[in-house]
């Protein structure tokens, strides 16, 4: 008998603490698979943000450092500059990265730091109970936007890939959806590419993953996927914005 499928080595054999139907679990799995396939678990340092993904503190089997809300790219910068031999990556949500951490992510990307940032965008503050995020869609309900997000007063949902692609330094800027098996495959390939860029000293890679939050969207998982298809992916276009082969600074 041959093994066709097994738990990635970077994940501890514990139950996922994410809610049923949450695509954070899928993201966790493909990141872990990417690490296994590249055989880099021994050199990986995972910078965790503040949000639902903080739960990763108890489920990952990697060197892990928890960071302050929004500051993961700054923490990763400090680690990578001192340990350029390590694979340093951040996994941040949309409240963390696109709201409180805007300055850190843009400056880190602009410096061309040789790290990999994976951005899980579910258009809501999940951990704190469903408040409006900068990525909440117009009309989408949140506990701090009970009538649905309005343009006046809250502006448009923030598209992070489109902001970061305007910088010259990033080597990879791409957005994938975790809604479909095809999207998950693309996302995993993008993560592997982002890690490879770092291992080859190319510079900064940014991979956005569109995800869901059935719990705070107040729907079942299947309905959440329908919302992603009809709403989320209409506003956040899934495509590769930047994919440069040359090393930053050369």
């Amino acid at each position, binding site marked *: 008998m041959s093994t066709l499928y097994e738990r990635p080595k970077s994940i501890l054999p514990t139950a996922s603490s994410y809610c049923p139907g949450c695509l954070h679990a899928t993201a966790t799995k493909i990141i872990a698979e990417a690490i296994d396939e590249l055989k880099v678990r021994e050199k990986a340092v995972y910078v965790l943000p503040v949000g639902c993904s903080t739960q990763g503190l108890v489920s990952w089997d990697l060197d892990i450092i928890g960071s302050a809300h929004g500051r993961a790219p700054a923490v990763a910068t400090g680690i990578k*500059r*001192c340990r350029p031999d390590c694979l340093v990556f951040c996994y941040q949500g949309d409240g963390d990265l696109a709201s409180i951490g805007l300055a850190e992510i843009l400056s880190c990307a602009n410096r061309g730091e040789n790290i990999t940032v994976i951005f899980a965008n579910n258009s809501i503050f999940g951990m704190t109970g469903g408040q409006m995020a900068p990525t909440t869609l117009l009309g989408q309900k949140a506990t701090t936007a009970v009538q649905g997000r309005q343009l006046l007063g809250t502006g448009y949902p923030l598209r992070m890939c489109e902001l970061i692609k305007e910088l010259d330094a990033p080597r990879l800027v791409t957005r994938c959806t975790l809604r479909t098996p095809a999207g998950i495959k693309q996302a995993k390939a993008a993560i592997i590419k982002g890690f490879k860029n770092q291992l080859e000293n190319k510079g900064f890679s940014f991979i956005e993953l569109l995800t869901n939050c059935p719990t705070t969207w107040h729907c079942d998982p299947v309905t959440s996927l329908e919302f992603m298809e009809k709403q989320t992916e209409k506003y956040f276009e899934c495509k590769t914005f930047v994919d440069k082969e040359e090393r930053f600074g050369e």
Partner: protein
Amino acid sequence: MEKKFMKGNEALAEAAVRAGVRFFAGYPITPQNEVPEYLSRRLPEVGGVFIQGESEIASINMVYGAASTGVRAMTSSSGPGLSLKCEGISYLAAAQLPALIVDVSRGGPGLGSIQPAQSDYLQVTKALGHGGHRLMVFAPSTLQEIVDLTYNAFDYAERDRNPVCLLMDGVLGAMMEQVELPPMKEPDPKAQSSWTMGRWEGEEKRQSHLISPIYEAGLEGLNKSFAERTKRWEKEDVQVEELYLDDAEYVVTAYGIAARVVKSVVEDLRKEGVKIGVIRPITLFPFPKESFNKLDYSKVKGIIDIEMTIPAQMGEDVEAAVKGRAPVYTYGHSGGVLLDDYDVKQAIKKIIAGGKEEE
């Protein structure tokens, strides 16, 4: 030892390099700018890393990341910037990471004044961030002391796995004096590899490491261990300079640059026959309570606290240490107004004559 005529901020920076600091991240703010300027040139010479962060917030978090690798990391700032760094300092404390935090203080509150002041005493000794953690705080009053205290800061930071704070002021940062520079330390980050981020090439197979500023079940235990550590500091790590306390009827207390003015005034007054002594805290935290405790209060008629800030801040700790056994008087100027030795002398004389400025 190598002797050099240096500016305070640069002496601090060179001492940090010699102490083995190999990572600095900071953001421009007066009156500490010579620290990052010097280190931006100096650190690359020794294989270190200098980053000008996009903000104080990013800078302290870069220090947090660097410290997690076992590399000696520091930042410097002044009041307004230090406030922004407080979030990160609280995280450093919670995650038990060693680092050096330097405050070259200026007048506050708010943007205050870029002129020297001692306005951050309460902030650095009581609450560098939320959560109730404490840092050891050192307050040099000469450039040599800046060098020596900086050079030894990581002995405490790494022993305790806790950030250490060095509180200077704009005068000390800008003035020039001769200093003796100690030899270069080359600490190996691999010596910290039992807890740091990132496996080393050839390192034996080991469990994954976790550095976390978040605790669920263990928080109370952690805070209890911090409380015990604070008690140990108070027993073992207090540094203080005491002068003429044996016959003192009045005791002047001051730290940092204010203490230098005070010491010269006290020398003058003693020549005039005034029985007056000095307590100069070098560690502001742990505070030298015992120096006040052991005074002979049958002789001491008053304690005079002199600071470059209004209202007095250290004065609160002095009151707590004196416990009402003698009146505590305060005198000082606020941000930007240097203490003048003539004024200080007159103020002390006035207090001795009338004791009317008691607070």
